[in-house]
């Protein structure tokens, strides 16, 4: 991952600050940087969102395509994740450089969304065993400024909230042959319920304390961090440890508690923003990439 090189003195400065609940940019340990969220930024997707968290810049596009349901879940649709680490973000990603990170993030997303109750996959089914909607979630990293996972999960949730799947009807005649009919009205579409879509909260252990939303500098001081995915109700859906250091069970427990607490407020803030944007309707002035 894109890393910054810090001198020993700088590290000590950061660690000592955190010890005092005061981070370099003035935040407390459980504070997020201010985030910018905008949905519907790519018009030829079914749903899209762009999230800027500090210097981290993420674009998520979701495309709904018709496919066949998986054999083991004949009456459900499914999600596919793909993460593209653009060389825009950092020169290290050039060529195949970003692939490893991309796969890692994608597999994390699969795990986070593996819980049944996260997205109502049954609503994605068109007719069992034959047709379902497949949501291709494409994540594009535009800039890395620390705390990629959280930013990506926020963007994915916002994009899912924004997703509009065209309504189709299955016409069946006497012989049993099925015909799929597309609705004439482009406004006639399915919205996904995102109430249970989790967000990732990354807790980085720095010194004796842990912080959320670490910057690149802070990440450089961190030996081990814990990724927890939390729903808006505070339920944990997955936990993962990253980094080469180790964590003792006591602190893991503590971190999970923090994660739940922070996660809940994160969901509330995000939902508020999304609803606000939604209420503006088509009159909203789009910011896009020029803003």
């Amino acid at each position, binding site marked *: 991952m894109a890393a910054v090189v810090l001198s020993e003195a700088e590290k000590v400065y950061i660690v000592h600050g955190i010890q005092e609940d005061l981070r370099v940019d003035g935040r407390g340990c459980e504070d997020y940087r201010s985030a910018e969220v905008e949905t519907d930024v790519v018009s*030829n997707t079914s749903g899209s969102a762009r999230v800027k968290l500090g210097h981290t810049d993420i674009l998520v596009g979701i495309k709904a395509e018709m496919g066949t349901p998986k054999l083991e879940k004949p009456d459900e649709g499914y999600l596919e994740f793909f993460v593209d680490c653009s060389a825009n973000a950092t020169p290290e990603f050039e060529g195949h450089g970003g692939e490893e990170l991309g796969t890692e993030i994608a597999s994390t997303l699969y795990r986070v969304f593996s819980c049944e109750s996260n997205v109502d996959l049954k609503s994605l089914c068109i007719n069992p065993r034959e047709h379902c909607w497949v949501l291709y979630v494409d994540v594009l990293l535009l800039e890395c400024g620390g705390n990629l996972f959280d930013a990506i999960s926020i963007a994915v949730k916002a994009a899912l909230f924004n997703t509009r799947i065209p309504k189709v009807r299955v016409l069946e005649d006497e012989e049993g042959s099925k015909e*799929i009919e597309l609705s004439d009205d*482009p406004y006639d579409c399915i919205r996904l319920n995102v109430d249970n879509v989790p967000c990732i909260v990354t807790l980085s252990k720095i010194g004796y304390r842990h912080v959320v939303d670490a910057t690149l500098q802070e990440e450089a001081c961190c030996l081990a961090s814990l990724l927890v995915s939390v729903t808006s109700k505070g339920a944990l859906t997955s936990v993962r440890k990253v980094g080469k250091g180790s964590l003792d069970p006591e602190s893991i427990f503590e971190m999970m508690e923090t994660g739940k607490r922070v996660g809940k407020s994160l969901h509330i803030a995000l939902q508020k923003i999304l609803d606000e944007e939604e209420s503006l309707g088509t009159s909203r002035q789009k910011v896009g990439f020029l803003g």
Partner: protein
Amino acid sequence: MLTSRTFLKRTRAGAVVKVVREHYLREDIPCGAAACSLCPPRPPGPGLGLQAQPNGASSSLCPGPHYLLPDTNLLLHQIDILEDPVIKNVIVLQTVLQEVRNRSAPVYKRIRDVIQNPEKHFYSFTNEHHRETYIQQEQGESSNDRNDRAIRVAVKWYSEHLKKIEDKEKIQVIFLTNDRINKEKALEEGLTAYTCEEYIKSLTANPDLVDRLACVSDEGKEIESGKIIFPEHIHLSKLQQGIKSGVYLQGTYRASRENYLEATVWVHGDAEENKEIIIQGLKHLNRAVHEDIVAVELLAKDEWVAPSSVVLQDDGQNEDEEEKENTLKTSVSKDMLRPTGKVVGIIKRNWRPFCGMLSKSEVKEARRHLFTPADRRIPRIRIETRQADTLEGQRIIVAIDGWPRNSRYPNGHFVKNLGSAGDKETETEVLLLEHDVPHQPFSQNVLSFLPKMPWSITEEDMKYREDLRHLCVCSVDPPGCTDIDDALHCREIENGNIEVGVHIADVSHFIRPGNALDEESAKRGTTVYLCEKRIDMVPELLSSNLCSLRSNVDRLAFSCIWEMTHKAEILKTRFTKSVIKSKASLTYAEAQMRIDSATMNDDITTSLRELNRLAKILKKKRIDNGALTLSSPEVRFHMDSETHDPIDLQTKELRETNSMVEEFMLLANVSVAQKIYDEFPEFALLRKHPAPPPSNYDILVKAAKSKNLEMKTDSAKALAESLDRAECPTFPYLNTLLRILATRCMMQAVYFCSGMDNDFHHYGLATPIYTHFTSPIRRYADIIVHRLLAVAIGADTTYPELTDKHKLADICKNLNYRHKMAQYAQRASVAFHTQLFFKNKGVTNEDAYILFVRKNAVVVLIPKYGLEGTVFFEEKDKPKPRLDYNSEVPSLTVEGTTLHIFDKVRVNIMLDASNIQHQKIRMVLVEPKLLGGDVPATLSTEISSKNEPEKKKKKLQK
């Protein structure tokens, strides 16, 4: 300003795709009104835009100056009205134009032509790109509603915009729509809106327009009144599912000429069984019209019927239809039964405007009348008109608008009056329309691709051309020919051999692939020659001037040059684009005269003599190979120079020079065919003539046998030889008769694409490969061949469609169809002029030979006029004569008198004009005299006063 349009669509593979298109909105789109000073000036183009002082017809509803703005449905249904010269100053919105384009290509083309016409002052306003008239689809709004709203927004914009123009008189915009809801909404918004009917009726100066309104009423209204006669048609999407699953069969509906209650459906596809399905009875026919694409459902096997041999004419009276239907159900043996079905839905209507005549209603002052089309396969059409008195006895065109379930006949509207029946121009127009010959003048768009005059050959043109202007080239054609597409030359070269060149007009130089001119020529396919009219395939500037290889002017040509020995053996063949300067344009007679007269020894004459000598050798070789020389009498009329009525009729004379030109054309065609096939084995456009199945020759063999002659038909060569041997010293005309008969046994020659077929043989000419290269002015096939050859020799560039064998196969299909139709139209024209001739001549008696013997009639040929006719022995309302038919000999014994094939008889010829729509030549046997009650000689006078005979004769079509 930029916005984007987003829509969803289903791809063929079944996926749903979201498509986003950029959509630019502008502020500089002019409103088109000439008096408008607010808008930027209109870019130059065809059409003149709207007039400052609209001078269209005055309307009592809206006496002031006004522009019209129709909606989509109105445009689709009432295009006939909008094309009338009275209707001017119409704004056609882009929204409307696009919807029309999606729904009906022919109407779209027509409206485009109207917009281009500077006299009509139609203006197409691109409202979808105008900043103030563009709207987005709203939530809960269907795309139709959105378009309706877009139209209303544009109307509103126009009315406000025109108010701003500082002018003495304010111009109004009138919104025309037949949609009740749309009209109400428009009125709510304060717009001026009328239905088409309201507006047209208000044009008090032009009452005749009302007749041409298409009668499309609201669907809902119809079901309330009248009893329902027909079962409902199944919806298209259901039909398609049914066809996929095999419940229904899709096919082309062909109504029967003889029986209006019967039709056959030719099922599409390659299925072996159920190829032809019989449909019987009004309910089963279910409002299908001839040539429609329909879906049929097969009936159970115990309901199958046999094709009935009854002749039934729809006489228009609403008598008991069921009773008639019962007459169809005669008991027949099991093996006569054919697959029978019923029409369940229409996949595609193939309605076109139909020619015919009005059958005036017997009720006085009635406005609803029935129209009887000239084509018997088309049902009668109910139209509404107030000018029935003037239309009686006129040939008119009527279009079908719809066929509701409770109506016995389809509803239609009057389109055009062609003129009185029997009139020469009218009848020519009718036969062109009925044979689907495109004969409208070339549109502005097509003409815009013509070279600009004065035209001259440029340096650029010379790049890939050889300069052959020094050669002594001349052309030989029939008298009065203005589209000369071939010329010849012949000279001795240094090594003692002879160089012969065929130079063909380089039409493909002027007609570039893909432009409107090319498309129009491809559509027309061929030039149609009628007795006194020529329907050109390419505009006159090309056909009679720039492409015509006239004498003493530089012309572009495509040359095929051979080096031959004095024995006409080809040593070398080469093709090149060239420039030639013909030294003389001769007629066949002039050329013949030069060859024959010993005193003339100039360059032209000597080369003609040499060509003639070579042609004879070539011809002999060809005949030795087994080429057939067949005969079909061709008729030529001598026209009165004042009235253009035929005053004499004679068969065409053939001279040596005809055969000379023909021989070299054949040689060029064969050489070119070989060359393009070698170069493009998959994409060569060739012409083949399949060998007829042996059973076709039965009639010829039998006929020859009756004269003690033997016909060998196992090969073309054998046939040619037996025909040559078939001479009878006492009956010199026999040989010609046999050759005429042999012609009738042949198959039709067709164009095809070499990649789609593997039988290339040309039976009649006895060549393994053949194509058409020598008449590009009058045949489109030749243009394609020219392009192929030009690519093959590197003189021109190729284009994608040229090497697409499916596209080529489509072209061939159209060409074969047009070619056939042109032939039919030609014959119909000859038949009509023959009728005119005999009308002027009165009743005559002529010598004739019996050509065919039928069960109840004989077909005779009158050599003097090359005229063929049928002599019937059965008359309606007369006791039937005793007829005895012997199919072996063949002969027919009528009341004791036996008639054999080839018997010489004398017939009485007269014109039967009792049915004005189907006039015909009537022939009655005079010699030998028939015994029995009805002596035909006296019969003739009776017939003319009698009603039209019920029994319809088939048209005399070879």
